[in-house]
């Protein structure tokens, strides 16, 4: 594994160096041209450090940034992918500092390594806006844009408790262990469960945010012989996996399934009544809000420290409204 990792990071490093070399020469070109036309009309360059281009939800967030960037003719955004490696993200932020971008939008890979990245930007006097993932010391950044993960867990579990009438056996399906969203959403779930004496967690496992793994985990749980009244999942993909396993076993009618994210796929399951609850985290809103705040900060305008993008509960009653959002 170490060996493999080292190779991957070497290859990525090589690509990154090439990328930066190309990026630098391009930038020099554009600034030369604008210099001829007018000195004032300089492009605002924003560096956006994203943890994982492969992640579906984050791709919607990136869409939000891209859409907003299109409406801003004087803004150029450079997107980089850390491939879920905090170390790689740190060097990417350092590269942004070297490039002297006008502001940085950071979605941290994890919440432990993020403060150091904020420090790097602060030392270079470059505004840095943290988006989506909150951590201790985030107030050192120029601004934070996002939602509070724990509230998603609370909102999701409260709705499930309502459906179950405040009693029943709960199975919690975790995302990748140790990630902020997994820890906080599950914490939110358990906070609510504690309030109901007749509700308890009978099973808990991880399916690493993945549909196929969620399906396998649910199949195994169904074979455990334990009575399950609700499956509360950290995200929608795993919840859909659980639904498919329950359907195949003919037990979907006995079990309430809840997810988080309200992805387009998940909304179809809500519409058909198979997924009872999901929570909408406004991906595009966070992306747009993050970039908007960064541009303001780059231009020296005053920005709010904390910008909360609220969660919204999605059930069969209001699902149509959310289906429209993705279209």
């Amino acid at each position, binding site marked *: 594994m170490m060996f493999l990792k080292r190779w991957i990071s070497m290859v990525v490093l090589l690509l990154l160096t090439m990328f930066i070399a190309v990026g630098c020469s391009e930038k020099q070109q554009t600034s030369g041209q604008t210099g001829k036309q007018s000195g004032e009309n300089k492009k605002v360059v924003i560096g956006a450090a994203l943890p994982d*281009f492969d992640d579906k939800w984050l791709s919607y967030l990136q869409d939000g940034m891209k859409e907003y960037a299109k409406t801003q003719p004087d803004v150029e955004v450079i997107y980089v992918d850390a491939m879920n490696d905090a170390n790689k993200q740190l060097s990417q932020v350092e590269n942004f500092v070297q490039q002297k971008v006008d502001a940085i939008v950071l979605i941290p890979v994890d919440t432990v390594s993020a403060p150091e990245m904020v420090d790097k930007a602060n030392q270079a006097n470059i505004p840095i806006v943290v988006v989506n993932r909150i951590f201790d010391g985030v107030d050192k950044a120029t601004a934070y844009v996002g939602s509070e993960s724990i509230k998603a867990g609370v909102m999701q579990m409260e709705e499930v408790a309502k459906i179950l009438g405040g009693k029943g056996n709960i199975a919690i399906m975790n995302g990748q262990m140790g990630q902020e969203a997994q820890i906080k959403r599950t914490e939110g779930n358990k906070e609510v469960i504690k309030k109901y004496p007749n509700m308890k967690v009978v099973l808990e*496992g991880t399916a690493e945010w993945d549909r196929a793994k969620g399906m396998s985990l649910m199949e195994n749980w169904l074979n455990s012989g334990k009575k399950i009244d609700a499956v509360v999942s950290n995200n929608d993909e795993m919840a859909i996996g659980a639904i498919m396993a329950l359907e195949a076993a003919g037990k979907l009618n006995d079990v309430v399934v809840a997810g988080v994210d309200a992805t387009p796929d998940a909304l179809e399951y809500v519409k058909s009544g198979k997924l009872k609850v999901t929570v909408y985290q406004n991906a595009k809103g966070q992306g747009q809000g993050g970039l908007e705040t960064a541009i303001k900060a780059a231009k020296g305008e005053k920005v709010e420290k904390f910008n909360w993008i609220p969660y919204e509960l999605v059930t069969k009653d209001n699902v149509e409204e959310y289906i429209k959002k993705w279209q």
Partner: protein
Amino acid sequence: MSSQVSIVNKQKKSKSAVSSKERVSRILHKYGMLMILIGLIILMSFLSPTFLTTGNLLNIVRQMSVVGIVAIGVTIVIITTGIDLSSGSVIALVSVVAASFAHPDTYPFFVPILIGLGLGLLTGVINGTIISKAKIAPFIVTLGMMTAARGAALLFSDGRPIGNLSDSFKFIGQGAVFGIPVPIIIFAFVGVISYILLNKTKFGKYVYAIGGNEHAAIIAGVNVDKYKVFVYGYAGLLSGLAGIVLTSRISSGQPTAGVMYELDAIAAAVIGGTSLAGGIGTIGGTIVGALIIGVMNNGLDLLNVSPYWQQILKGVIITVAVFIDSRKNRKS
């Protein structure tokens, strides 16, 4: 199990009379991992009353079918002293491409299957050709394919899952014939075909010959380059097949599917007695290896072991199993 092993055993037989002690060690040698699997199954049956039911056992094999199919291809690659790291990413690429041809009322169900298999085969042939013609280490070539295929999968799907698949296509992953899930039937079929390929054909003999001593194989007149392209092509084809089964099972083409599957497949092969130094390995062993991983995953879920402990236990069990196996090899 392998021709290598049987040759070794035959040599021993001619040297000395067969003592009962030797007979025991030979049985251990041949079926050591199978015994560990049976031991695990017995242990789990005591710990969880619902473990040893037909439903659950079918469930375990079905869950391991995808990784098992990949592992069979990887085993043959490893026997030639190669490695294939691209399997997981090829699964994802095949997954999104096949899914986009599997919407209801567009193409008949065999179109996405053939396209998926063809695409898998293509990636494997590319791997094999670069490895044999450009003489670049398999590790590097397949690492490149791993990155490129994942990128291609994301590019093709715009990073999003592709849903809305036809019922006939979904049958491959979700259907059952006479109560046996289709993925298990496909897995068994691949096992039988690969066993025949490896043990009853010239191809199989050459695979072991290349792994045993590539230089000697060249001198003996084996067209090593050609057979390497076959071997990687076959592994790619099986990754493609695994991608189709996975896509059908979860009713959606996922660009993020199959992450780390290549490592599970390599683990299954190595647990099953395949030597990373080449020349040694069997299809039966790899299937047992895959089932050991499957039984662990399932048993730990049934027992509701905390996700943190599950990872530690899996690591320990894999290492201990291979350790016991290697001790046994040294003794005999």
